[in-house]
């Protein structure tokens, strides 16, 4: 029991140090502030929002422009307060993004470690699955799956996780291949430790920086993807999310009525959330690998987005191939697609 408590304390201290490092970084400060702000808004939404958008009795005149009572006006189709919807939307977007990010991190790291360390048939199987999933276009697949499995909140998270773990798994696997050959793992093997023990106690912690970074970055990517999905009308119909607000704005005729605030508000929300999480993620990467500091942050992002081949190329040109940090899971970014390109 005492050992458990000490282990927890060690982890907390480690986390605290990490946070301090992020804070010390100039861009990290910005990111951390944004993320904290968003989380606070999500948690305290009922206190921040002047109205409860889920409560029908609090609806009022439709299509009002911004005013003191309604800082962002009201929606045209239902008469809900847009500012309140924005605040409550933080909850949905954050929950979907962070939950998916965390689950992807868990699934991806477990499978990646298994593939890398156990090798053989397990490795082949997992990597083949990754190859096949890489080939099928993501957005059409997501659309088909929502059609088939339903549009419930948790099913959508499940779909995102099912499609998103591949990138991380591959990256972790490469790292594990390197870690496998380090002295201290070899020592543990010689000492007769079981394979599970090694995987969990030695290898997994070695990938922790990558996992944490991926959580942040893929959360950001999932948030954009969820917004896109809700925008197409395929998200959870009962939840108020930013993507759904954009969809309602478009179908409710915001453009026809000239209600630009209805469009800007959720867009801004998405931007802030994604920007904040991405900053944190990129800063984490820099902390983990000081050599990366030389290059620009988006360079890292760009590298992370493409297939193995581009990674190969960059690896052959850079001199930190020995560390084998290839970048992180898919997510975020315009160029290669957040899953919004077929």
């Amino acid at each position: 029991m005492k050992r458990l408590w000490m282990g927890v304390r060690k982890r907390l201290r480690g986390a605290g140090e990490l946070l301090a490092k992020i804070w010390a970084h100039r861009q990290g400060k910005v990111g951390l502030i944004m993320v904290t702000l968003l989380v606070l808004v999500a948690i305290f939404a009922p206190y921040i929002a002047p109205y409860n958008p889920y409560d029908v009795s609090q609806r009022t005149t439709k299509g009002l422009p911004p005013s003191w009572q309604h800082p962002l006006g009201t929606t045209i189709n239902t008469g809900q307060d847009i500012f309140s919807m924005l605040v409550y939307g933080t909850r949905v977007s954050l929950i979907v993004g962070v939950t998916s990010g965390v689950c992807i991190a868990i699934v991806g790291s477990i499978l990646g470690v298994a593939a890398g360390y156990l090798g053989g048939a397990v490795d082949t199987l997992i990597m083949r699955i990754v190859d096949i999933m890489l080939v099928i276009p993501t957005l059409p697949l997501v659309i088909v799956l929502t059609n088939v499995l339903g549009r419930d909140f948790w099913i959508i998270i499940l779909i995102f996780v099912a499609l998103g773990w591949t990138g991380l798994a591959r990256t972790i696997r490469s790292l594990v291949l390197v870690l496998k050959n380090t002295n201290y793992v070899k020592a543990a093997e010689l000492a007769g430790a079981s394979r599970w023990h090694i995987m969990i106690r030695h290898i997994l912690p070695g990938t922790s920086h990558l996992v944490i970074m991926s959580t942040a970055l893929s959360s950001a990517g999932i948030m954009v993807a969820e917004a896109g999905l809700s925008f197409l009308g395929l998200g959870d119909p009962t939840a108020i999310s930013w993507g759904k607000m954009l969809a309602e704005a478009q179908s409710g005729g915001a453009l026809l009525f000239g209600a630009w605030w209805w469009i800007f508000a959720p867009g801004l929300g998405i931007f802030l959330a994604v920007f904040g999480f991405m900053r944190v993620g990129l800063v984490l990467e820099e902390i983990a690998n000081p050599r990366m500091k030389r290059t620009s942050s988006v360079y890292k992002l760009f590298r992370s987005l493409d297939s193995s081949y581009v990674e190969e190329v960059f690896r052959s040109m850079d001199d930190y191939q020995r560390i084998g940090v290839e970048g992180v899971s898919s997510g975020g970014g315009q160029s290669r697609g957040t899953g919004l390109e077929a």
Partner: protein
Amino acid sequence: MKLSYVIKRVLYSLFVFAVVITLNFFIPRIGVEDPAERYYPPQGNMSEIEYEIVKQLTREQYGFHVSTWQQFLNYLKGLAQGDLGTSFRPGSPKVLDLIKERLPWTLVLSVSTMLIGLIVGVLFGVVAAVKRGRWQDTLLLNASTVMVALPSFFIALVLSFYLGFEWEIFPAYTDSTMVSEFAWTWEGISRVARNAALPVMSMMVGSIISYAQGTRNAVIAVTNEDFVLTARAKGLKRSTIRYKHILRNSLLPIVTSLGMSISGLIGGQVVIEQVFNWNGMGTLFLEANQTNDYPLMMGIMLLLSGFTILSILLTDLVYVLLDPRVTVGDKR
């Protein structure tokens, strides 16, 4: 060595394709007890017996009267003959015909975006690399970080609102006469250009910036390579170094990423097409989804997957040809 590698890669690609075909067939059928359900007419005052006959006829009509396995075999047989299936739309058009009709329009958007992104982006990237650390570079950096966080459909909405609705410079929604009255005349083409302006603008910013960043970093990285140092030491002219050595080598990653994005070209940006009411492959897929038109959905997904596999294969082979430094074998 090379031939066996090529064969191995081709076989592997075929294997992946086979798995994809199977998945493609079975995924839309998950949890659906009776796929013809949607197409049964209401019973009205038909007796039970009559209604059963009608249901059976409907099932035969859409090919659902045989077992799922048999349906799969029929599907494979059709594929072997190049038949992607028949859509469930009234008139039973062939899936391939529908795709052929819509594909050029998607290509208009995606190829334009890619070209603009490529040309402008590479140029920006080179400039930023050359002026490393100065304002051009920082501008690119800031623009990238902002662009990555803004979803493209949001940009699309904003552009369509201001440029389309408020200031009426471009049409906010695609004019349907663009397709129905299209001809290879100056008027026809400029009408297409006018309607394509907003969608392309929404997509091109992201495209430009990503190519710019990639080029910039590739150029910088290559500039630091040994062989450039050698060339400088040899006293070659600066322009020779710049073009022959640096640019050519830094274009390699761009070329490979181009190869990867071919399937994106064909699939198009679904969300952008939806915002602007552009009749391309993206909206075709959405329509198919709305009406549960399985053959059409499967046909499009198969086409896209097939192209991805093909482009990965080609990129792989081209790459090995171009850069022998990369070790052959399991790249992953």
